[in-house]
């Protein structure tokens, strides 16, 4: 692989024939069935689908928190098993350590990756400012609002400078106004960092606002997953006619008029 090649492939995710099932009360539950997917480096892929269709499971397999029964996950062309430095996960709950301050929480990921505390803190400060939390460096998680706490979680993930950000309904628990602001924030972060983002969401508008493509998973085994290319210019405007039309079209496809 040449140098150019490896740069071009940074953040690329390939899924080959991925299957995963769980046993629940003695019954086998096929959650993911032979999924194939290619996400080029730097793309934003949204994953949507009804509750229980396996969105979180797919993301957890990608994160390496769950082993697939069959199939491979390839990052930048190489198969991966378990967690790895190329990926960082942002969970629905911020999952902050209550006994650490904002800065210490943001530095935590770096410290776990073997960076010494002073350097980690230094870098954490930068990202705390970047997600708009300047002035709250010494605050504890219980002193933060839901939106602020999620920003800390996002900063913690960005601080380790992953090629791929895996987000599981990161804004799902936020109120409508905060959610809009945070969507803008995620769009900005993506633009500035050039990371690959794989975003699980139950909010179609959020998917259209952020994604290049949308992966639609279904719950019944008869319907295979499909990928919808959005082809919308950026920056996106929720009230632009193209946006509105696309939303209507997708809503209709989901039977939500």
């Amino acid at each position, binding site marked *: 692989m040449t140098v150019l090649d490896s740069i071009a492939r940074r953040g690329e995710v390939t899924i080959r024939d991925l299957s995963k099932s769980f046993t629940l009360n003695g019954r086998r539950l096929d959650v993911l069935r032979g999924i194939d997917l290619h996400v080029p480096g730097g793309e934003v892929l949204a994953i949507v689908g009804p509750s229980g269709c396996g969105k979180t499971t797919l993301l957890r397999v990608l*994160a*390496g*928190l769950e082993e697939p029964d069959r199939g491979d996950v390839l990052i930048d062309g190489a198969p991966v098993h378990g*967690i790895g*430095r190329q990926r*960082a*996960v942002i*969970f629905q*709950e911020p*999952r902050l*350590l*209550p*006994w*650490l*301050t904002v800065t*210490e929480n943001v530095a*935590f*990921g770096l*410290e*776990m*990756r073997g960076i010494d505390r002073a350097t980690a803190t230094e870098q954490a400060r930068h990202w705390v400012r970047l997600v708009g939390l300047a002035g709250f460096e*010494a*605050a*504890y998680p*219980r*002193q933060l609002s839901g939106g602020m706490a999620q920003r800390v979680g996002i900063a913690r993930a960005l601080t*380790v400078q992953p090629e791929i950000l895996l987000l599981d309904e990161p804004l799902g628990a936020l109120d409508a106004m905060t959610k809009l602001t945070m969507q803008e924030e995620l769009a900005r972060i993506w633009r500035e960092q050039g990371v690959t983002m794989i975003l699980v969401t139950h909010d179609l508008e959020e998917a259209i606002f952020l994604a290049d493509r949308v992966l639609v998973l279904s719950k019944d085994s008869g319907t295979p997953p499909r990928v919808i290319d959005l082809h919308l210019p950026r920056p996106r405007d929720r009230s632009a006619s193209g946006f509105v039309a696309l939303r209507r079209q997708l809503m209709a496809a989901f039977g939500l008029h």
Partner: protein
Amino acid sequence: MTLQSLDTPDFATPPARAILARAGQGARRATARYGLLLGFLALWQVGSSVGWINATVFPPLHLILGALWEGLSSGALLDDIAISLQRSGLAFAAAVGLGIPLGLFMGQIRAVEQALDPILQVFRQTSALALYPVFILLLGLGELSKVFVIFWATLFPVLLATIGGVKEVDRKLIEMARSYGATRRAVFLRVVLPAALPSIFVGLRLSATTALLLLIAAEMIGANRGLGFQVMNAQYNFQIPLMFAAIFLLALFGLAANFALVSVQRRLCRWADAG
């Protein structure tokens, strides 16, 4: 290392006015908190002096304080205090030294916890007092059996609280740490231990109280010194003020131990009461 990371430097020293205001506030809070206790003591003093309550069973406070002063200044009670604190202290230290490490271990390894839990429950439910004769048979009537019976009763609160604290650590936080590549050691030091700390302190406080409570029982048999012995002995010799003096001392040590532990907890778990 973990302990240090829990501890952030203080913010700037507040100006004098703020300190005064806080002192005033503190006084008000103290009245709200201890007013009832003071009222109770006043009622005791007056009631006993006037004769509302039986003064031979509840002597007035000044007689109790007199007996206390006499015991302390003559040095007679100092001996009892020293030996009692030594017994309780040794037992408490041993219970903490065994209970916390064992609890941290048991709380993390499910198989160990499940295997040991039934025997632990049986031991816990078997009163230390009921086992005291057995301990005496095994260890003799000397110091060892006394310290051991206190140790036995003191072990379970801290052990069970530590196990509980570790078991209740949010799995999602552990998973978060793992997703950043945390080693088992890092997960333990940076997530499990700090998360279990408040629960461990609850156990420590209960254990400290137990260590003092058990003195009475431990010094009931085969002792000729100690605060617990003094309570029994003074009662036997009808020196009721001296009996109450020893009881007050025991209560005082209980309060002091609790206060010390709460202060340490406040320092280590500052995050928990950050408003």
